[in-house]
């Protein structure tokens, strides 16, 4: 119990954080080393990690197979920290099928490989429209799918986190894996845009 009259939100955040860390250590819940590891993993999480996976999948069929079978293993094999992260599932786009990821319930997002979700991903507007009117939503993003492409909206509601493995853009045969990774944006891995 906090002492009466102690207004926690008014205390300096560094002091609160220091007290919390000391308590976690004293109670054996999380060691300073574990907290440091978690901070490093959070700092490392960004769309660049997912982009590395996509570029590797575009150039290495064995890696592609691993990524589709077990996204978590595929991320780990590139040195992406996944400890404590929910299982990662990878959705493979084909010329006939385009994936669009949303979370109608809240904001489930594959943070380990894409970092923090963009603000609009968490908005009621995006969440409602992704499932109701995915084609209208893509049109507003300026995303034009080839005629005959089916849309599969993936509503992320439970224990997995989902990222899209988009199609490799035409005209990129000469590019290195690093150059390919630079083409891939977070929106491409959510499925609202296509890599260009």
């Amino acid at each position, binding site marked *: 119990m906090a002492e009466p009259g102690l207004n926690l939100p008014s205390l300096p955040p560094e002091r609160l954080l220091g007290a919390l860390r000391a308590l976690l250590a004293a109670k054996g819940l999380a060691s300073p080393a574990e907290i440091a590891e978690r901070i490093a993993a959070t700092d490392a999480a960004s769309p660049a990690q997912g982009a590395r996976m996509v570029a590797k999948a575009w150039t290495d069929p064995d890696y592609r197979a691993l990524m589709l079978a077990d996204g978590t293993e595929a991320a780990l094999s590139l040195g992406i920290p996944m400890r404590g992260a929910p*299982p990662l*599932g990878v959705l493979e786009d084909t010329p006939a099928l385009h994936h669009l990821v949303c979370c*109608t*319930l809240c904001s489930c997002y594959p943070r380990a490989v894409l970092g923090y979700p963009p603000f609009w991903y968490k908005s009621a507007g995006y969440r409602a429209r992704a*499932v*109701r*009117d*995915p*084609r*209208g939503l893509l049109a507003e993003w300026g995303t034009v799918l080839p005629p005959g492409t*089916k*849309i*599969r*909206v*993936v*509503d*992320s*509601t*439970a*224990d*997995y986190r989902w990222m899209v493995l988009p199609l490799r853009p035409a005209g990129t045969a000469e590019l290195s894996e690093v150059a390919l990774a630079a083409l891939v944006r977070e929106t491409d891995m959510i499925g609202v845009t296509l890599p260009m």
Partner: protein
Amino acid sequence: MTARLAPGALVRVRDDWPETRGKVHIRTPHYLRGRTGRVVRHLGDFPNPEDLAFARPARILPLYHVLFDQPPIWHEGSAGDEILVEIYEPWLSPA
């Protein structure tokens, strides 16, 4: 609980609204209640979030990826478009 729904199985989502009976935490989207879909695959087994949310002992439940046709649910979609959602076994029955 062992997974008893095979890939390809036609399933119906329980048309149930626990929200109307008290405080709950539900991961089955409301727009799918009472809808029929097809099991894509068993994703694994996970503790029931409906219990975890209240710090109750949680049963381990099979979780499935279930595919639904989009237009019958939301009429804005095009024929052939689909919605793929993770659903826990107690919400599903063979259709």
